[in-house]
């Protein structure tokens, strides 16, 4: 049977009432969990796992897949409305989404985010359906040096997203990388920076840091400044959403979708680096690049498309090779194993119906997500009418539950509250917080990839440059860094020249 016939069969199954209901319920749960600050889609999927025991294997996968798709989007709702990212991948949605809300254009921001996410997700679901096999071969060629190079690209993009203060951003990034080293190291199993406290051996989880830095600190700021989260101008009536808006950001959506689809196959933290790199690249490419951070639609659309575009491609290695690249796909793997299904190349031969039903469902889920997204977003918009005190209490409560829920560890709650105060202090002195979170996420990955690369290639560090894919990515990273730094360097150069010219006696 051809791919089209198989996919047709898959759609028939996915449109069955029970399957459709499963997808819709999963989507709603995912979007809500994603939108709640602190409760990530990984939590939601782990909580949903026991409910899948009684389902058929395919239905279980549809349920978890829908939560995944919905959850990756949902994080942006709270990012746009209250400046608190629901999941780490929604960090960039704060940068241009929230300023739009402050201008009263919340509806426009949400509409662009939903459309971009859906198109990104759809692109990636189509890649999964039609190009899973070549993509899997591509993924196999990636080894540790390539993963390291891709992580470096993610770290470098911090320079691109920093407005005009690359040094301060780098400082923040390095601080995050140091925080990321706390705990038992993944290679030698040595405890680092634990100060003899056993609880510290589990390390500092990046989700916990993020909840503290963004959610808790926002509430502290709310209390300290007695300010109102509601936009000063109210919801602008003129912010009607037009088709023109979507057409204007088509390039951003296209680039974001491509970046996300490719980065999604890399194990580790696919969605977050995908979104950040897409934002950084868009900032360089877009004619409005220098205005990014003030509420530019392209700056919202690109990372939104990218993060949802990682959902389909993250499932490529899972379904074709049986390799989970992320926490979300690991949970899907567990669900399959508990049903006695082993994903991998044989699954395509033994049970193509199941595989293509999952493909069809991923396509369908991304389309249905538009409606689920609008529904939940409308509900969340009412939050903006809530008095700040009530909203603050609500965020604190969810944050603490979320911090605990990451690993069911009470220590994480203390860490989260600590980072709440740290984040508030950083914001007060104008020290950027986003690079720190990226450092905590990407630092440990970079270290692990670096160490394993060296072990694998005879302790020879030149492999990073001599292997073609790795070398290309690193060269890209270097170009990217210079390109982003160029305006700053030029300004510095000019001021030095001026300074010298001004010297008396010359």
């Amino acid at each position, binding site marked *: 049977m051809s791919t089209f016939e198989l996919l047709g069969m898959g759609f028939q199954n996915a449109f069955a009432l029970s399957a459709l209901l499963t997808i819709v319920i999963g989507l709603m749960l995912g979007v809500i969990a994603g939108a709640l600050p602190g409760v990530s889609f990984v939590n939601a999927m782990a909580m949903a*796992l026991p409910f899948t025991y009684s389902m058929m294997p395919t239905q279980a996968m549809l349920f978890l897949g829908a939560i995944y798709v919905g959850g990756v989007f949902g994080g942006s709702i709270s990012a746009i409305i209250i400046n608190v990212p629901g999941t780490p991948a929604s960090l960039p949605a704060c940068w241009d989404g929230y300023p739009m809300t402050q201008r009263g254009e919340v509806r426009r921001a949400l509409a662009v985010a939903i459309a971009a996410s859906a198109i990104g997700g759809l692109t990636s679901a189509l890649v999964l359906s039609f190009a899973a096999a070549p993509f899997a071969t591509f993924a*196999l060629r990636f080894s540790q040096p390539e993963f390291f190079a891709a992580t470096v690209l993610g770290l470098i993009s911090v320079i691109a997203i920093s407005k005009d203060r690359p040094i301060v951003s780098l400082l923040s990034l390095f601080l995050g990388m140091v925080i990321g080293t706390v705990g*038992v190291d993944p*290679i*030698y199993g040595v405890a680092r920076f634990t100060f003899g406290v056993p609880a510290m051996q589990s390390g500092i989880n990046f989700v916990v840091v993020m909840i503290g830095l963004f959610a808790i600190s926002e509430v502290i700021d709310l209390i300290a400044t007695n300010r109102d989260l509601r936009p000063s101008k109210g919801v602008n009536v003129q912010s009607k959403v037009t088709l023109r808006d979507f057409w204007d950001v088509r390039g951003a959506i296209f680039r974001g979708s491509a970046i996300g689809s490719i980065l999604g196959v890399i194990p*580790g933290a696919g969605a977050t680096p995908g979104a950040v790199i897409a934002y950084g690249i868009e900032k360089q490419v877009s004619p409005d690049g220098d205005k990014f951070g003030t509420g530019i639609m392209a700056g919202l659309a690109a990372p939104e498309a990218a993060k949802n575009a990682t959902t389909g491609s993250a499932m490529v290695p899972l379904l074709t*090779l*049986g390799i989970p690249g992320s926490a979300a796909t690991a949970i899907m793997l567990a669900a399959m194993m508990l049903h006695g299904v082993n994903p991998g190349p044989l699954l395509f031969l033994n049970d193509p119906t199941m595989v293509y039903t999952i493909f069809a469902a991923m396509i369908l889920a991304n389309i249905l997500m538009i409606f689920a997204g609008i529904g939940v977003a409308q509900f969340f918009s009412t939050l903006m009418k809530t008095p700040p005190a009530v909203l603050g209490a609500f965020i604190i409560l969810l944050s603490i539950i979320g911090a605990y829920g990451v690993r069911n560890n009470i220590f994480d709650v203390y860490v989260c509250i600590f980072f709440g105060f740290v984040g508030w202090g950083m914001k007060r002195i104008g020290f950027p917080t986003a690079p720190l979170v990226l450092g905590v996420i990407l630092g440990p990955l970079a270290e692990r990839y670096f160490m394993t690369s060296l072990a694998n290639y005879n302790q020879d560090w030149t492999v990073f440059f001599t292997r073609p894919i790795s070398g290309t990515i690193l060269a890209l990273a270097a170009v990217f860094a210079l390109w982003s730094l160029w305006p700053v360097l030029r300004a510095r150069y000019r001021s030095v020249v001026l300074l010298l010219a001004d010297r008396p006696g010359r």
Partner: protein
Amino acid sequence: MRKLGRFAFGGVLVAGAFAMANAAIAQDYPNRPIELVVTFGPGGGADVMGRQLAQILETELGVSIPVTNVAGASGNAGLTRLRTSPADGYTVGTLISLTVASWAADIGDNTPEDFRVLAIVQSTPSFLYVAADSRFETAEQLLDYARDNPGELTVATSGYGTQDDVALITMAEQGFDMVNVPFSAPGERYTAPLGGHTDLIYEEPGDVVQFLESGEYRPLLIFSEARHPEFPDVPTSGELGLNMVYLNTFRTLAVPAATPEDVVARLEAAVVAATQTDAWQAFCAQTYTCLEPVTGEAAQQEILTFFDAIAAQLED
């Protein structure tokens, strides 16, 4: 005075109720949900084992058994939680070989004496595999090459200071020096030989079933005293003249050491009964981990033996 009398009477009642409740614990046990602490994140071998067992134990014990994942510090975060929970049988945890190995490297604040192993429910020897297109057809070819080219072949393992590492060090001591390439993320480890990034992979068969069934992995040799019934053609390390300490990967359920005897007995019986069910047999067959569950003193001893073997290797 009357008030005081009533208060005293109430106190006696409450105390009596507590005493009765205490006496009733063992008889009624279990009468409320039992928390199963899985000491690793969702999706791993310990998690799948724990969830499968929890599902079966719910019918055996007649109470619900919610699973909580407490990951971190090679499983020690969850074990610390288990150790500090009341020793009343209402908190059970997973204890696996990887965590025991981490104790030898001074990770965590737990010791083998802190826990009472209910049963070793899964145990499996490991193999060395090559990818389907590897130049090595037999174990002899592999060993000859490793002897003639020390430090050239690379093996994907789960890390340093693990049973994988000990096996490779023991082989190196006997003249077969291969490089340990640590991959702590299982997915990356499985990909390494497939993408041609390492020559071999050291792994238990249950974790790579999909690659064995599809023929993408070929097992070359097994680290075990006897051949594996499912892989009768794969020679053992002993047959090839290697002198190894056999360190199986194992997974157990454990409770805090102070848990009352009768509660332990009840749980132990339930776990053993659970492993006899069709559901469990199908699961362990799928993951090549079936064994007669080891309980009591024998289980405790097996953990100590494993711990000592790793510790001895790390001292060198």
